[in-house]
């Protein structure tokens, strides 16, 4: 399991490397991207705020739960601070011997992250 909260741009390869391993034939990655428009309003960037210490614990808890439930390896990378439209705000990676478990683990973690990780976004129509 790997949890990364960073203000740097996220890396697809880094998230993938975090879960890959010889016996794990199936890897599933979810990327959340900042949409340039939300509820009809143009968005230039989204600011992500987190209760960082608790967010790390929550994400570790979610990832560990999915790893146990699905026998998968999980990584969650979330970007904090300003994220320009079109860039990636979160990556959830999951790997296991077969694809069913990797899909299930990845989906579970992103769904639960959106319910319980103490992270908030404030969208900005124009550059601040």
């Amino acid at each position, binding site marked *: 399991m790997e949890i990364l909260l960073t203000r740097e741009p996220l890396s697809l390869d880094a998230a993938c490397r975090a879960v890959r391993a010889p016996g794990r034939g199936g890897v599933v990655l979810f990327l959340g991207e900042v949409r340039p428009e939300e509820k009809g309003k143009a968005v230039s960037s989204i600011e*992500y705020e987190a209760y960082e210490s608790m967010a790390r614990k929550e994400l570790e808890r979610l990832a560990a739960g999915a790893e146990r439930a699905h026998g998968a390896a999980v990584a969650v990378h979330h970007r904090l601070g300003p994220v320009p439209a079109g860039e990636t705000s979160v990556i959830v990676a999951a790997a296991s011997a077969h694809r069913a478990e990797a899909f299930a683990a990845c989906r579970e973690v992103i769904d639960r992250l959106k319910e319980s*990780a*103490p992270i*908030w976004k404030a969208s900005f129509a124009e550059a601040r």
Partner: protein
Amino acid sequence: MKISVLLFASAREAVGAPSVEVALPASATVSDVLREPRLAGLAGLAPSLRFALNEEFARPDAPLREGDVVALLPPVSGG
């Protein structure tokens, strides 16, 4: 007892500060922090707030101890 209250997102904006120190009686519970006058601005938000106690989600009636850290968490929007 002295309790630290952390505020995030809309709660922080409503109060105008990222944290507030609150003095409460020994038998106080997590939700009692809302009695603090400086947090009066949260009245509107209160129903949608979740509480965390020392970085774990907590029930409003969870008991507090000296030095505990309570966080007021508006609906999250990560991911």
